[in-house]
């Protein structure tokens, strides 16, 4: 199925990816070609088929609710682009 450019713009906004104006038509065209290929699925009757999320049909394991990790905050903060007083900095959200 082919997708309208406006729809790609909406999806890009949901995915928080900026697409330059000069690229939007190429991106739309390539994604349309992928979705056309994917549409082969619609010809198959799957009414009675149970969806499969995990290849071993495993469910999430639970563990005891106790602390197993040590505090590595300082080490993790060293990886961040911008920190101050142990906080991650982003542009001001509320004036």
């Amino acid at each position: 199925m082919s997708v309208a450019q406006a729809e790609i713009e909406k999806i890009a906004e949901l995915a928080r990816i900026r697409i330059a104006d000069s690229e939007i038509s190429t991106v739309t065209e390539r994604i349309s070609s992928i979705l056309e290929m994917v549409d082969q699925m619609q010809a198959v009757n799957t009414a009675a088929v149970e969806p499969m999320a995990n290849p071993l049909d495993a469910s999430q394991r639970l563990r005891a609710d106790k602390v197993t990790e040590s505090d590595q905050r300082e080490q993790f903060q060293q990886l961040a682009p911008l920190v101050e007083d142990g906080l991650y900095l982003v542009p001001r959200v509320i004036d």
Partner: protein
Amino acid sequence: MQHASVASLLAGLRAGEFSSEEITCDYLSRISEHEGQLNAFITLTSEQALEQARAADQQRAAGQAGALAGIPLVHKDIFCTSGTRTSCGSRMLDNFVPPYDATVVSRLRQAGVVMLGKTNMDEFAMGSSTESSYYGATRNPWDTESVPGGSSGGSAVVVAAGFAPAATGTDTGGSIRQPAALCGISGIKPTYGRVSRLGMVAFASSLDQAGPLARTAQDCALLLSAMAGYDPADSTSAQRDAEDFSAGLEQAISGLKIGIPAEYFSAGLDSGIAAVIQTSLKEFAQRGAILVDISLPHTALSVPAYYVIAPAEASTNLSRYDGVRYGYRCEDPADLHDLYTRTREEGFGAEVKRRILVGTYALSAGYYDAYYRKAQQIRRLIQQDFVQAFTDVDVIMGPTTPHPAWKLGAKSNDPVAMYLEDIYTLGINLAGLPAMSVPAGFCSGMPVGLQLIGNYFAESKLLNIAHQYQQWTDWHQRTPTLPAAA
């Protein structure tokens, strides 16, 4: 020496014929001579490698050598390595130095391996040619104008070019088997859950699985024995006891029932590859195996189902790259929205963005049932095809890829053409089964891979069959002649 197997190097190290430091130096000098033509590495760790090699030699002298002590190895740059940059082939992680080791890395380190470096790959493992890396394309040593396959292309090239005897890789839709096939080496994707995913940068969590690439099935068995095993820190790790995958290598294969899926030999398969695979199958039959015609009727649907499920999971996993906690951040963001959208525009390459967008689309309101749920239902049908087949046969065989390695750039502008190259490997990931590729001959001068698909947790059987095949063939011993360094 540069094309020696892990098994023979271990024998030489044990017998004191050479030290780990000596062979590590030899590999490093071969790398420095030829890496410029192949671009197999993102990061070389020569200094650390020599330190690790000397440590391995000391451990061996002290009688404390691990199972793989002193064996040089490379890791795909998707595995977190404490203190060594782990880029995943992306600008997004170009500056990321992990604070911990992936379980695969720590297990192999405990076994005594020497890490020579981190290998090139398609960005976030999304690709079949190793051309989408931020660090440039890797080239196939059999023809440096051709792709090596992907996404573990750097790892496959390292082994094929004799830069190291072994490598780690990951396989979400064929990313170990396909580059192994295109570069003329052996590689195994284990059953989903067999090898821990902890510290492996996530792409599609219900499909991702790590495994080894090496010259021989015997070497794959040695490496997998060290890599595999239950890891409580990976919630999808299979709760199974450790296994010695080398133990059953010598079992006879007479009476083996080999399923031959009609769908893997239909239109779209290169006639040269078909001929190579038919020859291999005949050889199995001559040695007492029984060839059984089978059908995997939903094979063609594995491409659309995969290209919904994998992008959907990727769009979720890659939402973590937001320019805040680690990785790339755009310059001078005007506001928070600009920070997110521009960081992701600039940090991700074209293919990764395409997959995030396709995945976001498939999961968005109004499309979930038509795409994501539908793909999961088809995934079940694909799995049932295999389950049905394994009620009658011990192993399934066919080609790993429909074509030999193609020229650099030939499919770069046509994502769907690139996706169709994965037709014989995707279904195995969707079903979660183990499979491997072994060298089986040549087509137009380029290597061809024979794919062996096993039942759940039947890695020992696969490795046994592949090892036996490598007793009567020498395709795994063929090596490319590298052009003289410029």
